[in-house]
């Protein structure tokens, strides 16, 4: 505050008010015991706040009470949570803290990623990862140090494979590499979801965003099969669908290594017998699959991270030239999937 010497003393802010946590939404579950304080809340016990407490207006008093209540509720919930969850939460916190992502003093990266929101989301997926799908991951030692494009196959009607890969790179890679996702252009228009998407590391998939985020040294995940892969019927399981070319052009342009990933197990989590395309179109959904089970089966996931593939060439080459390079990635993933299927004993183990 001393540096804003332009401000005459009479105009200087008299105090730093304590942020009303209940209102701004940073308080709550698992947040109050943050050691080191990544979330910068002002010290409520400082003397200058004490003598000003009585002057709080009613609105602020309500906000304070709500903040305190939410802290209390968070504390109770946390102490009730099983040790297993608390340990996993702690592990995620440490690993995200040691990841190469740079945060500003308010705890955000330039794209709005926030480790606390991300951790709480990852926690849910981490429980699924460890105890429901019991994921077996190999090849994480191949991850390059700087920027990378993670290119997996896509399957399973619900995009849980994305979540499992994201957990693997945080929970099992050294150092942890939180993955950045590229979203559709209309996603930022959805209330609440847009904020959530940014906090967990997603951005809109514009070419400029993709370039910036890769040049910043981040790990970006993209599914070149898109919905074609995710919504295919059970009979076509583990048959790679047509790949989009965007990821290859991006890799060539930014000189980014591609990490091919094979996901084995995702195809059996939900068994699709058909897809009602007209209904999907009517509802504006990418697909409307008819499933035997709408709740995923407890199959075992196997993730294989391949060695990084480096490509050189002109990003603006014709589709034919780019397509040949894309086929190489596709072939590598296909090989890894077949190998994984050979090794797998059955769906569940």
């Amino acid at each position, binding site marked *: *505050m001393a540096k*804003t010497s332009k401000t005459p003393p009479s105009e200087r802010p008299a105090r730093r008010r304590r942020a009303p946590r209940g*209102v701004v939404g940073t308080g709550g579950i698992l947040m109050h015991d943050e050691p080191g304080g990544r979330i910068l809340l002002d010290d409520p016990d400082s003397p200058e706040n004490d003598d000003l407490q009585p002057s709080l207006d009613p609105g602020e008093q309500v906000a304070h009470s709500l903040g305190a209540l939410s802290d209390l509720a968070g504390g109770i919930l946390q102490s009730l949570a099983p040790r297993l969850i608390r340990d996993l939460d702690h592990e995620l916190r440490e690993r995200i803290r040691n990841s190469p992502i740079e945060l500003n003093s*308010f705890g*955000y990266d330039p794209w709005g990623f926030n480790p606390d929101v991300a951790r709480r989301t990852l926690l849910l997926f981490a429980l699924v990862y460890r105890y429901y799908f019991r994921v077996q991951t190999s090849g994480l030692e191949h991850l390059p140090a700087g920027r990378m494009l993670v290119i997996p196959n896509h399957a399973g009607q619900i995009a849980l494979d994305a979540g499992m890969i994201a957990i693997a790179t945080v929970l099992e890679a050294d150092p942890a590499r939180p993955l950045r996702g590229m979203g559709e252009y209309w996603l930022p228009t959805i209330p609440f979801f847009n*904020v959530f998407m940014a906090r967990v590391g997603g951005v809109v998939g514009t*070419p400029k965003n993709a370039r910036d985020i890769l040049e910043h040294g981040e790990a970006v995940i993209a599914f070149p099969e898109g919905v074609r892969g995710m919504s295919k019927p059970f009979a076509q399981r583990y048959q790679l669908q047509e790949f989009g070319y965007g990821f290859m052009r991006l890799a060539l342009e930014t000189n980014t290594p591609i990490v091919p990933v094979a996901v084995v197990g995702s195809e059996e989590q939900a068994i699709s017998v058909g897809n009602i395309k007209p209904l999907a179109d009517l509802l504006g959904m990418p697909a409307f699959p008819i499933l035997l089970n709408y709740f995923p089966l407890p199959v075992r996931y196997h993730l294989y991270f391949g060695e990084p593939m480096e490509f050189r060439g002109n990003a603006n080459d014709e589709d034919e030239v780019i397509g040949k390079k894309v086929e190489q990635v596709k072939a590598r993933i296909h090989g890894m999937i077949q190998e994984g299927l050979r090794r797998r004993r059955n769906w569940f183990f």
Partner: protein
Amino acid sequence: MTRCVERLLITGIAGGQGRLVAKRVADSFAVSGVDRAPWEGHPDHITVHTMDLRKKKFEDIFRRERPSAVVHLAFVRHFRADPMVRHEINVAGTKRLLECCATYGVKKLIVLSSSYVYGALPESPYYMDEDTALNVSRHYPDIRDLAEVDTLCNTFLWKYPDIATAILRPVPTLGYYVHNSIGGYLKLRYVPTIMGFNPMTQFLHEEDLAEAIGRTLETGIRGIFNVTGPGAVPLKVAIRETGGIAVPLPEPIARNTIDSLFRLGLYHLPPGAIDFVKYPCTIDGRRFREATNFQPLFTLEEIFSSVRH
């Protein structure tokens, strides 16, 4: 070349930013300024003409003083005035100034545009560079005149290759002297936001913007430059740090309320401004930093404390 002191003309010198720029460059230039409003108690070594840019006598300043450099800050950015008058001052005033610059041999021209000209659109990239289209009129037609001014100066930039024209597009600027829409918004006790939206927002301290303008003058760079500060935070962090309380309103309610209040003159921003609290309008400032070695001096914490109430 003779080493005489260069003469600098600052339009809009009586505004907060104008005064800061005048102070920043007073040692290296002979400064004079024009403003519609008077600057009471201005320093003696600065000449201030109280005059409208659209008046005929404005040209006399160029004839008499022959400035070699011009910093153009005279824009109406608030909505209290008649929109027609606002448009005329901003666009016709700029056009007039550009003509004078071309006629009277000005060597350097700096125009203060803003990052708002890019507009806040859901599909915009996070860090827009200077080649991004000026999209503001799609959702916020009330400030399209600022985009028109920017375009006008861009044309001037290419038309007169001998004049070092620099168009600066800074992010929202905060500070003690500057009075602007974002400052007024953050100084509210209860700050309306849109429920379910919390875009990343960049800020720059007013002194740093004055420094950026000073460096532009000193380096004589030519082109369009985004000017960014120390970084970005979610809007609600900025509201919290400046001492406000965010009041999230569902969008339809917010739009109707703000529309009515604005019409009645009870709220200072038109409903088009809502998009700027929904979607990020964040820009990439690398080009300017590489060209001038500019580094902001004030941190986000210091910027917020300069407007805390």
